[in-house]
């Protein structure tokens, strides 16, 4: 009985002392937003293409697909057309990009071209329709997102445009690039 009482009194002390001296491990703790870095790109010349990282997420890579204007020349800086960018996307990651582990989920195109379709009357405002030479209905989610994101960022700088894919087997609903996140305060 007495021993029990002593043990009861000694418990909190022991517990506190055993609570650990020194620095202990922690779980993963979230601390603030990501680092917003500068992206080395020549505005208008570089286009963003979206490929798959090894762990499954999509990541943008930039390609100099536009025409660079030269001082004193009749050429003016012109961004690459959406058709050209999507065609480049279908051709897969470059050697360097493959070296970094990037892959594509899109099937290889053997024939056919990519066309930006004229807006249908009564269609959704602020949306674009893209004709691709593949079956779009059975495309994997990653592949669809690759097409949607690439098209959206090539059409508008902030990628906020909605994109519809028209393929050999029909058309998809309008979708947005789900990769973009709200920008931080900085």
């Amino acid at each position, binding site marked *: 009985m007495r021993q029990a009482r002593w043990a009861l009194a000694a418990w909190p002390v022991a517990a*506190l002392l055993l609570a650990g001296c020194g620095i202990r491990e922690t779980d993963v703790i979230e601390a603030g937003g990501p680092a*917003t870095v500068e992206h080395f790109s020549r505005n208008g010349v570089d286009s963003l293409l979206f490929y798959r990282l090894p762990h499954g997420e999509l990541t943008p890579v930039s390609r100099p697909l536009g025409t660079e204007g030269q001082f004193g020349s009749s050429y003016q800086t012109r961004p690459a057309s959406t058709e050209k960018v999507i065609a480049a996307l279908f051709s897969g990651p470059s050697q360097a990009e493959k070296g970094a582990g990037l892959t594509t989920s899109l099937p290889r195109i053997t024939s056919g071209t990519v066309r930006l379709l004229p807006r249908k009357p009564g269609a959704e405002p602020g949306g674009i329709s893209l004709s691709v030479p593949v079956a779009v209905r059975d495309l994997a989610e990653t592949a669809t997102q690759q097409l949607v994101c690439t098209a959206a960022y090539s059409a508008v700088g902030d990628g906020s445009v909605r994109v519809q894919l028209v393929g050999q087997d029909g058309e998809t609903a309008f979708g947005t690039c789900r990769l973009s996140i*709200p920008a931080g305060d900085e």
Partner: protein
Amino acid sequence: MRAFGLRTRLVLAFLLVAVVGAGTTAALTYREARTALLKTAQDTAVSSFREQVQLNTFTFPSDVGNLEANLRDIARKGKPRPWIVFAEYGTLRASSGTSPVSGVITPGLRRAALSNPRGAFERVVKDGVPYLTIAMPTVFRAGQHSALPLGLVVYAVMRMSDEQINVDALLTAARDGALPGLAVALLPGLLAARSVLRPVRELHRAARSMGSGKLDTRIEVRGKDELADLAHTFNESAANLEHSVKELRRAEARARRFASDVSHELRTPLAGMLAVTEVLDEDAGHLDSDTARAVRLISAETGKLAVLVEDLIEISRFDARAAELNTDELDAAEAIRKTLVNRHWTDGRIVPELPEGIRVRLDPRRFDVVVANLVGNALRHGAAPVAVRLRSETGSDGTPVLITEVADSGPGIAPDVLPHIFDRFYKADAARTRSAGSGLGLAIAAENVRLHGGRIRAGNRPEGGAVFTVEIPLFTEGATE
């Protein structure tokens, strides 16, 4: 001091309270301070790492060499934090250190950084060294309101050695603060023990003093706590006890004085009656036989009454502590022989075994009474022959004693009677209410022996018959003075 006495227990209890108090305070303070210290260090590291990363421009996809240059730049600017920066992009791995991949970064942190583009940190202890690992996913601004994750995660791994030192210092401070606290707690513990123990000691002393007969012992009542209540109760009980004992003693004294007074009052008329019965005895021969028997009966009973009164007076002298010892040095065998002759016990009923030459200092009159009472008792209640033996031996306490034994050849003393044999008016046989003796003979003998500082015992011999043994020191206290 006792091993688990009150003082030890009180001091231990105080120390325990102090340990709990000081320990809890120190531990809580330490925990809070440690948390605050680490939080500051971590927050500073995370935000400064984010700033460093944001200063860089990345090209995607970058070749490994380009990425490594970027990382070294971040690592260099990471002062004063000596961190190692790791970058992971796809399957590319680069670092500002020697190894491209860190062994400290956990899969959990990696998963968190890749699935959620927000900064995160994790404290890892590896081989006893605490590390702070920070994961900083990168995004770039794609428009006014949106940003795109780059898939590049930059990690910083930092040894928390400074923090470790600070935390250790905190721990030392907490411990060094708690230990003097314990030492300080010892003082009130001892004081409290003292304040409790002093009344307890007084109580102890008072109880012992009362036990030794000082019934007027009282305790000083201090304060108004439970111990004061105890002292108060003790005093009340002591007063009640003293009163009761006084009352008892007074009653006893009254009773004794009454017996003594009655005996003395009876003595004078009895003396007259004895004189008259002597005359009547002489004349009895001239009376007719019935009257003569009646006269002789009255004469005999009067004689017994006189003996009883003398015995009563004798025993009330003992009760009043008025009995005095008038010692004289004499030969023990001589004294006993004189007693036997005076009582006319010289016929064959008595077998004296009296070795000569045992000198002893005692009161001859009282010794005479003792021997006479014992022999008389043996003749009355036992049976002849009665042996009277004398010897000297060394007593149980090492002093030489004179041993006088009176053994009869009767049936012995019943075991239930033995403990009461020296009681006054104790009748061994309830049916025999009238005996020749006064009923006080053995009691008076016992009192006389006790007055000599000796002992008297009654018992039965194995071969039958009662034996009374008297032990009297050869040199009584009165003699040695």
